[in-house]
């Protein structure tokens, strides 16, 4: 046999701190993703009931495959495992709330193959998402100058905390942390409290994102339906909301003393009066459309594996790029309308510094959030020593994108006829439903969100059910109840409180408190203290960061 000349004992992995199984026969070249899965050493060594990551069947299959491969020569295909018997790999999805849920090509043996550019793009892509729609509103709430400053400051702050998350694994001595994600690190330092609290905050971010998605999807579906209906029936609709005149119309939906925008329209058309009223009754943004979505999305949530949807990842990138393009075109048409009033209120403009700025920081906490999955994303980087540099570049690009969209929308908002206060929490709402460019944007975003929604639901289900029941799909009833609860929350919010800016800032500040501010800093301080290297400046700075996070959360409720 040709294998006779190969050494019998080949250590697994090049990492000397890897306590992995001394695998009798694996050739290091076999590493590159030929091995379908991997048995944790703890399965053999530990007697406590730690939740294992690999099922008994998978572990038995692993042994079987190792053994069978010894019985034949490589040329003989007789005992190669066919695809249908291999256990499905634990699907690794990373998501950033409101960003893209992203399926990682799992090369979990740790030998990454992505160049820096790809890694930077992946991080940008995962972080970028629907929070971009609320940035102009956030800048408006904080004031133009303080908004820009806050975007930069929050970007740097969250970047630093992200850096702390990435480094947190390395400070753990004597344990093989190569497979760990940040919740595992929390569990190491804080025991099961850390595990449960990171699960809780992760759920907050996921469910918050799903609720925002539902509200936005109802919005976009409503507008799309309205546009199509009007287009088909050739209706020329003028909404009785204040807005600019002319071809690039910008409207101010909430001008009627602040309550939720109505969808009444005055109709000038040659069509059927009653038909239109019937349509208006059955196609209402907050009363009926949220319910129609249930028929489409609830079945999708019950699917066992949403890997089909991960293929549509590219829609997210296209949507963001298109939004940037749309913003540029609109600004070119509308021109710049800026006036600097430092602290005074004005009919049309907002002061440069406003007391409501914590609302922006709440939104930004979620907009810059990637701390729950940054380790997984950076793991596939080919040159690991460039991780910090690549992460910083990615954050810089994300900040730049947010800044650009926010500033341009804010600056080009036609202020003499309309007030800057009119900028909506979803800036697409400022364009009427018959505007072609925003119609296209809404369609893109609608499809993108419909494909990300099941992925987010899958992640929520896997994390929650695995923690409680040990099994990602215990029975159709458990899954159904969970999905109904999540969908119900979305529908309720769409019905009664469709203010995505509000939802984003509350959930952002909450889950940001744990993952961005408190845990990374606390873990860093504890690890330094254990190593005897805690200095006063480090202590003060990190306690300050924790207090900032707390203030961020409290301010959301007070202001």
């Amino acid at each position, binding site marked *: 046999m040709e294998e006779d000349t190969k050494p019998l004992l080949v250590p697994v992995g090049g990492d000397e701190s890897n306590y992995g199984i001394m695998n009798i*026969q694996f050739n290091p070249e076999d590493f590159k993703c030929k091995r379908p899965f991997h048995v944790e050493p703890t399965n053999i060594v530990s007697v406590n009931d730690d939740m294992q990551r690999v099922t*008994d069947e998978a*572990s038995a299959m692993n*042994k*079987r495959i190792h*053994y069978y491969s010894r019985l034949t020569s490589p040329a003989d295909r*007789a005992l190669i495992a066919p695809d249908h018997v291999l256990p499905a790999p634990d699907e690794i999805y990373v998501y950033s709330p409101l960003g893209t849920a992203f399926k990682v090509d799992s090369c979990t043996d740790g030998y990454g193959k992505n160049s820096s550019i790809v890694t930077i793009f992946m991080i940008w892509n995962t972080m970028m998402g629907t929070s971009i729609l609320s940035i102009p509103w956030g800048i408006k709430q904080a004031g133009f100058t303080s908004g820009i400053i806050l975007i930069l400051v929050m970007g740097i702050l969250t970047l630093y905390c992200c850096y702390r998350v990435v480094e947190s694994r390395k400070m753990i001595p004597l344990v093989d942390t190569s497979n760990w994600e940040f919740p595992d690190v929390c569990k190491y330092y804080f025991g099961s409290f850390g595990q449960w609290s990171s699960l809780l905050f992760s759920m907050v971010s996921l469910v918050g994102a799903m609720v925002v998605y539902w509200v936005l999807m109802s919005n976009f579906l409503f507008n799309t339906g309205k546009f199509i209906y009007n287009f088909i029936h050739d209706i020329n609709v003028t909404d009785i909301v204040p807005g600019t005149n002319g071809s690039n119309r910008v409207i101010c939906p909430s001008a009627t003393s602040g309550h939720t925008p109505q969808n009444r329209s005055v109709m000038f058309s040659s069509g059927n009066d009653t038909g239109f009223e019937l349509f208006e009754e059955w196609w209402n943004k907050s009363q009926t459309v949220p319910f129609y979505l249930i028929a489409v999305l609830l079945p999708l949530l019950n699917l066992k594996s949403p890997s089909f949807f991960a293929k549509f990842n590219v829609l997210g990138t296209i949507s963001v790029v298109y939004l940037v393009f749309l913003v540029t075109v609109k600004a070119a048409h509308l021109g710049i309308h800026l006036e600097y009033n430092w602290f005074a209120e004005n009919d049309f403009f907002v002061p440069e510094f406003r007391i409501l700025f914590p609302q922006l920081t709440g939104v930004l906490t979620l907009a810059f959030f990637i701390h729950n999955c940054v380790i997984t994303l950076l793991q596939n980087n080919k040159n690991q020593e460039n991780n910090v540099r690549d992460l910083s570049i990615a954050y810089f690009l994300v900040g730049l994108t947010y800044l650009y969209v926010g500033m341009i929308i804010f600056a080009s908002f036609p202020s003499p006829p309309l007030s800057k206060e009119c900028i909506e929490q979803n800036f697409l709402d400022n364009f009427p439903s018959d505007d072609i460019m925003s119609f296209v944007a809404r369609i893109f975003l609608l499809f993108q969100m419909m494909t990300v929604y099941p992925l987010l639901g899958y992640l929520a289900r896997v994390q929650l059910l695995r923690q409680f029941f040990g099994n990602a799909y215990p029975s159709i009833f458990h899954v159904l109840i969970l999905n109904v609860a999540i969908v119900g929350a979305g529908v309720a919010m769409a019905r009664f409180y469709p203010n995505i800016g509000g939802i984003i800032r509350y959930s952002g500040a909450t889950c940001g408190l744990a993952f961005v501010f408190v845990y990374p800093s606390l873990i860093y301080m504890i690890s330094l203290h254990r190593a005897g290297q805690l200095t006063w400046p480090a202590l003060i700075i990190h306690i300050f960061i924790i207090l900032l996070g707390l203030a961020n959360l409290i301010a959301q409720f007070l202001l």
Partner: protein
Amino acid sequence: NPKGAVKDSVLLMGKSGSGKTSMRSIIFANYIARDTRRLGATIDVEHSHVRFLGNLVLNLWDCGGQDTFMENYFTSQRDNIFRNVEVLIYVFDVESRELEKDMHYYQSCLEAILQNSPDAKIFCLVHKMDLVQEDQRDLIFKEREEDLKRLSRPLECVCFRTSIWDETLYKAWSSIVYQLIPNVQQLEMNLRNFAQIIEADEVLLFERATFLVISHYQCKEQRDVHRFEKISNIIKQFKLSCSKLAASFQSMEVRNSNFAAFIDIFTSNTYVMVVMSDPSIPSAATLINIRNARKHFEKLERVDGPKHSLLMR
């Protein structure tokens, strides 16, 4: 052509391509023979070195589906093949499109058995079940089992569904081996006494050549139900490595702060594995216990006459 004494054999039969060679390779941990399809049927008798359960010899025969030359050869050798057969294991490929023909060949084998070795035990394996959709497996197996039991009368056959890609193959062969041991209940009782005396967590008795579990005792629930097959695969893999060094595997001790496990030769046809969860008991003590038990169990084997005990030939 009778070549000296004809040894008692276990026949592994089935259509060409039904998976017998892979099965033998996996169970007996020997390298897969080079592509036998080119050579036509497996002509194995003179070269079979595989022995287990004492001096039983495993013979593979392709039955049915081959060309006329092989048919004639098979027919002319029939009496030779079917004489002194202890066990017939017949393998059916569940995906076969020629069910009628399969049954026909099976029945002709049964006729030969009835003529030459009417006391033989018959086992039918419905193989390659992984190719059937999971929710259909029970149904399809039940159908086949009913047909086979009906066709086998007056002989009795025991049916298993198997696949090399899950635990069913190992379990089926373990059941077969279990049924071939006449005094297995007594063996189990003695094993339990042994385990309780030495305060072991678990004691396993393996067949020596195949590491199929003959009998086991455990004093508390163990979490991993697949551990027998896993241990068997690990040891067989290790044996293969040893054989590359022209060494033969005799015994193994695995120990850490939580447990100590000993795998050692037991009787002439068995291996024992003892798992102790009290690591403070020194190895020497357990090894002495095993050595003393060995003598006792060998006596057990000699008590039953040669006709009745398969463990002694």
